[in-house]
């Protein structure tokens, strides 16, 4: 199972992360595939966000390898790269569990900051920009166009000139996804994008993520507690508990995996297991 798959865009191999004496992730391996949505689920404290932080370089894993392959064949070993270089060169974008927007900047400015590296190059590392050369102005126009197209997709175009901090919660979540997409990522890591959303907003999020998957050349990695989102859109689910992988597969197989049910309900008895499994299967079935 741990052997790297040739088609995988992201291969996490034997990832282990320790904080002092605490092992947050131990020997975790999984793959994510292009054009697919991979969900990372598990009870609270299972180490999901830690996995994200390792992939995006905010933590340096204690052991293990995180290989990332672009469609054009370029390969990166993410565990060796700085966080900003992972975003800049490997093209991995992410959102945060507790939204991290630039709240004092406008919605449009947030999306412009996301295109920083491209614009920096166009401004001749600022020198050309100060002198007001034409190349930069063209690049900036193109950047605004890209931002506009994303604002239309996440239905925030009317609020483009409002400060990001003024948006309601659900809008902020969508803006954060749009901002991540403006970096032109190959892998999009979403940390609980549906947290705090009402059912209607969750439904909308599902549509948005599906659209991103089909319209852009991007693999999506998703941490989520909202099973309606997970079951509704994931192609592939990895279940974590206490930092270890306990299940890996398509939604249907994960749903009926006794290990998953045990982890979520914490029961040992086989009979109870069966009952719980049925209850969960029903609940999940209803939602999806």
């Amino acid at each position, binding site marked *: 199972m741990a052997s790297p798959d040739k088609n995988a865009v992201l291969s996490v191999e034997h990832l282990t992360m320790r904080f002092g004496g605490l092992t947050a992730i131990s020997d975790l391996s999984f793959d994510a595939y292009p054009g697919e949505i991979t969900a990372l689920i598990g009870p609270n404290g299972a180490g999901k966000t830690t996995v994200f932080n390792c992939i995006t370089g905010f933590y340096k894993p204690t052991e293990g390898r995180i290989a990332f392959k672009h469609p054009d064949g370029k390969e990166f070993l993410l565990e060796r790269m700085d966080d900003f*270089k992972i*975003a800049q060169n490997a093209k991995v974008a992410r959102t945060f569990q507790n939204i991290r927007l*630039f709240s*004092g900047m*406008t919605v449009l400015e947030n999306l*412009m900051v996301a295109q920083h590296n491209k614009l920096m190059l166009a401004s001749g590392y600022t020198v050309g920009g100060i002198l007001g050369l034409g190349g930069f102005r063209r690049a900036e126009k193109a950047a605004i166009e890209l931002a506009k197209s994303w604002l239309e997709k996440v239905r925030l175009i009317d609020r483009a000139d409002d*400060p990001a901090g003024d948006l309601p919660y659900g809008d902020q979540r969508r803006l954060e996804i749009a901002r*991540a997409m403006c970096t032109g990522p190959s892998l999009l890591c979403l940390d609980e994008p549906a947290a705090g959303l009402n059912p209607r907003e969750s439904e909308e999020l599902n549509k948005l993520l599906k659209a991103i998957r089909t319209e852009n050349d991007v693999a999506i990695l998703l941490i989520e507690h909202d099973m309606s989102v997970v079951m509704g859109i994931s192609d592939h689910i990895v279940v974590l508990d206490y930092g270890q992988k306990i299940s890996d597969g398509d939604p249907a197989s994960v749903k009926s995996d006794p290990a998953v049910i045990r982890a979520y309900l914490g029961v040992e008895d086989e009979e109870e297991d069966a009952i719980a499994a049925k209850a969960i299967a029903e609940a999940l079935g209803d939602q999806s």
Partner: protein
Amino acid sequence: MTAQDVSTLKAKPIDFGAVAKDLLGTAVVAMLILVPIISHKSVITQYSLVLETRWPTIAIIMAVLLSVRLAMHLFVWNRAPKPVAARSAGATKVTWTDTVAPYVLPVMIVLAILLPILAGGERRPIDLGIYILTYIMLAWGLNVVVGLAGLLDLGYVAFYAVGAYAYALLSTVYFPYWFGDGIVPWAFYITLPLAGLLAALWGVILGFPVLRLRGDYLAIVTLAFGEIIRLVLINWFDFTNGPQGITVPKATFFGLPFTAGEGGFAAFFGIEHNRIYYYIFLYYVILALALLTYYVTNRLRRLPIGRAWEALREDEIACRSLGINTTNTKLTAFAIGAMFGGFAGSFFAARQGFVSPESFVFIESAIILAIVVLGGLGSQLGIVFAAIAIMGAFELFRELNFLEAVLPAGTDPVHFRMLAVGLAMVLMMRFRPRGFVTRRQPTVFLKERKAVSGDLVKEGHG
């Protein structure tokens, strides 16, 4: 809330027991503060140290303090609380300040250009103008670091010092040595860019180690750097001439010295020699430098680097997740800020004709920071008003001769000006912590430019 509702809010009855208790408490604390620090003063006489007392002063201060506090109890604090106005939504409303703002700066620039004419040959307004413009320029430079990038720098004066000493040492020692004495009249024009570059280099050198620091720690380390540079300037006698300082050549009008007689500025243009020309010249130099600072920093704010600075102030982790190299971004902020400090320093040296370490004490950094904060973090226009207010008030203290009548003998009102600056900083934070201009202007917009309310704008990690 209607007017009727307001009128029904009755004043609270005064609890005289509580008032008496409060006044007693105030009296006790005030006495501890006044005695012995104010009431007694040590005086050196011929034979020994003796104490002088100032009880009448204490009595006056206590009487004023207690009656003011009593009056507050009787007439102010017992009033019903005012109905709280609903918080207006930050960005949607356009206030008159936003409409007027674009015209304020051009008007001020025109006034600034006309000032020497308006002054009508008087030297004082021009001196004051030079003085204020220097601080405006410094504050605009520091604003890049503190206001935009959100990095609290308490050692900014170090770069001012680097600029000043760069001019002093290059023009008196190195240029004559390298290129001969003929270069000296031109030294100002050659050193000015060099001083800026040197200061920027120092910005990077000092910025590099502190990149990982946040908040108060960053502030203290930058303060320490500022002090280290000053102490080295004092103690490295061979290089800097220590506390005695260095006398430097005055700036020339593109090689023409402002002297009477042959080859001078007046002789060249066939006008009568007058020292005022030199000050007018200096005034326009600093005005040009300040406008350059304004143009460049304003332009930078609208470029990707400027947006990255502001994004850094808002959320550093999010910046990194978007592929922004925060190390380089911070270093450029330090370097650009330092560069303008260096320009200003080199101008300062040329204007004074003399540099010594005592011009670059921590208090200078604190004053420049106070201007930036009072102006409103990140606001360039606010800084102009803040600099005029603070430096103007500073100058005012020179005029307050009438204060001498009420002050104890031997105290000069000028001594009170630093006290006033300190008090102003405290009061500013109490009543207007976000400064004069609290709204942030976005750098790019689709349909309309709406200012962002200061409540949403973060102040950075430090």
